[in-house]
């Protein structure tokens, strides 16, 4: 019935694991630079054909730069390749990163639920780490991001 079969991956990006824990972000992650990094990785590992067959449904749907959470959509046939490529991504820009999959689902609805939960939990951790430095902007930005999740569509 549904034409497009997709997989939605909720991933967290661990930026620069080598540096100390509570510094400032070396690079702000956006939809664009994550998408670029992943596409480069697919190209290197799976070549032109691999990139071509994955790129159809591939999209970075949501990124939260505060909690480093992102939601990536991939077609069901190629999601494992795309997932492996994501795992093999070594850096975004010149900042070493580690991608870690938190949740994998087949529908947008399940993905939204998982993303909301993970985001909230990660925000709690962020607040713990930041401590007293939490600014209102950040909190507001966070609220916006959560709203964005709720508005996600396939």
């Amino acid at each position, binding site marked *: 019935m549904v034409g497009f079969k997709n997989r939605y991956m909720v991933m967290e990006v661990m930026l620069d694991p080598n540096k100390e824990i509570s510094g400032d972000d070396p690079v702000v992650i956006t939809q664009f630079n994550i998408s670029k990094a992943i596409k480069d990785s697919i190209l290197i590992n799976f070549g032109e054909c691999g990139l071509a067959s994955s790129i159809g449904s591939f999209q970075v749907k949501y990124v939260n730069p505060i909690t480093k959470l992102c939601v990536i959509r991939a077609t069901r046939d190629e999601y494992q390749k795309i*997932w492996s490529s994501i795992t093999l991504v070594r850096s975004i820009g010149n900042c070493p990163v580690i991608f870690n999959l938190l949740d*994998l689902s087949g529908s947008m609805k399940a993905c939204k639920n998982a993303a909301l939960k993970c985001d909230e939990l990660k925000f709690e951790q962020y607040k713990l780490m930041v401590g007293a430095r939490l600014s209102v902007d950040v909190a507001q930005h966070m609220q916006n991001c959560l709203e964005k999740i709720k508005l996600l569509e396939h």
Partner: protein
Amino acid sequence: MGFFDINIPYADSTPANKANIAAKSTRIKIVIKAMEMGYTGIAYNRTIRGVMSDRDRCSIPLLSLSSLLNIAPFLSSSVNFHRDLLGVPRSSPFRQYTRLTICIDTASQSQALNSGNPVLKTYDIVAVRPLNQNAFDHACEKSEVDIISIDFSDKLPFRLKLPMIKAAIKRGIYFEITYSDLIVDVQQRRQMISNAKLLLDWTRGKNIIFSSAAPSVCEVRGPNDVANLASLLGLSMERAKAAISKNCRSLLTKALRRKHFFKEVIRVEAVSSSQPSDSEAPWSADWLKWDPISSGEGDLLLDDMAKSFASNNVSRTVKVIDFDSIIDKMPSHGFQVKDMISGTETSFRSPEKVKSFIDRGDASLDNTFSKHLTSVFGSQEVDLASNARKTSTGSEEVMINTVTTEEELESYNASNVVFASVETENQNHCLFPEKHNEQNVVVLDENVSNCVNAVIRNENVVSHQTSAMDIELGAAALEISPPSENNSLPPTQGGECNSSKVSHVDLGAETVKVDDIAVDMDMEDHENAPLSLNNMALLENISERISLRAFEDDAGTADQISLQQCDSEMRVTNDSWVANHENQVLVEGQKLAEGDGKMKDLASVLNDESLPEDVIESESTKVVHNSFPKSNPKMKTKGISSSIINEVREVALEMKEHGEDGSKTKDPTPVQRISGKSRRRHGNPRQAPSFPLRLSLYPVSFKRRTTQKSERRVKMTEL
């Protein structure tokens, strides 16, 4: 099921220069990252090449929780978050192991890889990296190693042959594939995939483990991601996930068994003096809590992070004595306690940490027992271990007990039951686990008919349901030694009561409810403990009650009589340890037959007696391991002596699975709280099971269980 990363490179850092400091910090960071991502165990891998020397003994320092928290203070929240996502129980300890990888070139180096090599024994896991065809063939067929690790990142210097690989799998050797080669470099990626694909096709994922060998923290990946990379290499997702969890776990069980057990059977443990007294729970209870893949001091309990800096919170580890070295020193003319004490004095170190999964909520008790255990017990253990294999162990053990526990004997003789001090309890108590552990091991392999073995075989008994064994167990269990609740049990079954016990024991055939019984026993035990300790008169009562108990089982009067007979005999021997186990087994059998209602009698009996608060306190610590199951209400109905309850408890403790959920119990006493607390601390039922053979040992009959029990059983069989 936890996830393991069995290869975290460790650089030998004796010269303290800049590179080594960097290496150290790298190691810590990798460990933190691994823990954060949800791994439950890691192994530090030291690589050496060629010939081993004595300097190569394991000197890898295990990291402590405090050092990790210094660098990443908010580790626990992240760990919990990831663990929940992965489905790993939050409270399972983070284990650290040590591993050695030997690069083998020549045949002579291969010869060194046997079980007699003392250097290899100091490491938890031993891996071999063959560098040429001969070495590979030898490794597959003859070497006594755990892992064959092949460097796939370059062109392979030898050919992988299917019959060799099959032979290695048959011997139980695992092949290791390191995934960091995929991440680090593109050229290496190419080589690695083509090389590893062949291995994976032939093994179909069997006996394969994935590990990181991460040169820096950027190369560590989460468990799900690693499984996905493995599927890239041709494995199905299910096999891939198993390669980082199940296979690793069985590898660790095997490796630790090789390391800690003498001839794969006997485990010698040094009981530390700082061990909180489980005077209530016999050593068998400790054994129940035995964690087959515990890494000793390496286990980090994460849910105690807040308390990790408190002095009380010491993770308890059981020191394993290097059995071989002690055996060599043993005089040929037989066991001499003095010799053992002096001989093992040096090798024995009372560990500062205590077994994590027997973590007691009551920290204060930890300190009280520190003085009690001496190396005597350590030496005793050694001797016991050596004797364990002999069939005449029963008498020997009793003798040993009497010899070594002189203090106990004195007190015992004086009061014949009363234990004024918790200390004595502890002492005796400490004694038991040693023996118990050994015995358990021995029993598993041999069909020793003596009582001692029977005790060990609590688990086996249930499954095998040999009446003779049960009888022996009963007898042994009832042998009361001054310590703790054992005294209360005294009567019951001496070895001589075997015949009568048979019928009684048949009840034990219903091993099914082991966990239930255990739970019940815990309750009973706990309650019994204070009673037994303080009440000399209990002995008599106990014997009576035990006989009463026997009746409950529809076993007939024969049991009762036998019980009484046994009682008298029991008193003579000082083998309380055995008694505990025996009792427990007995009790189990009884309980099975009787059903819940009977337990209630016990409870009522117990409740009638006055329980001194302090005793209860001390007891509660012992009872920690087990949840106090609903046995409480059950116990009430039964008019069984507290001793029986003790037995039950002991059995329960022994039989009780590590992960039993204490929250089920409705124990109103403080014990329950404590036990529940401690239980939760240890690791919950959903954790990787402590008893890999449990399913086979306890055939579960699903007939007559209340929902509670079936719940428990489900958990038990959740293996």
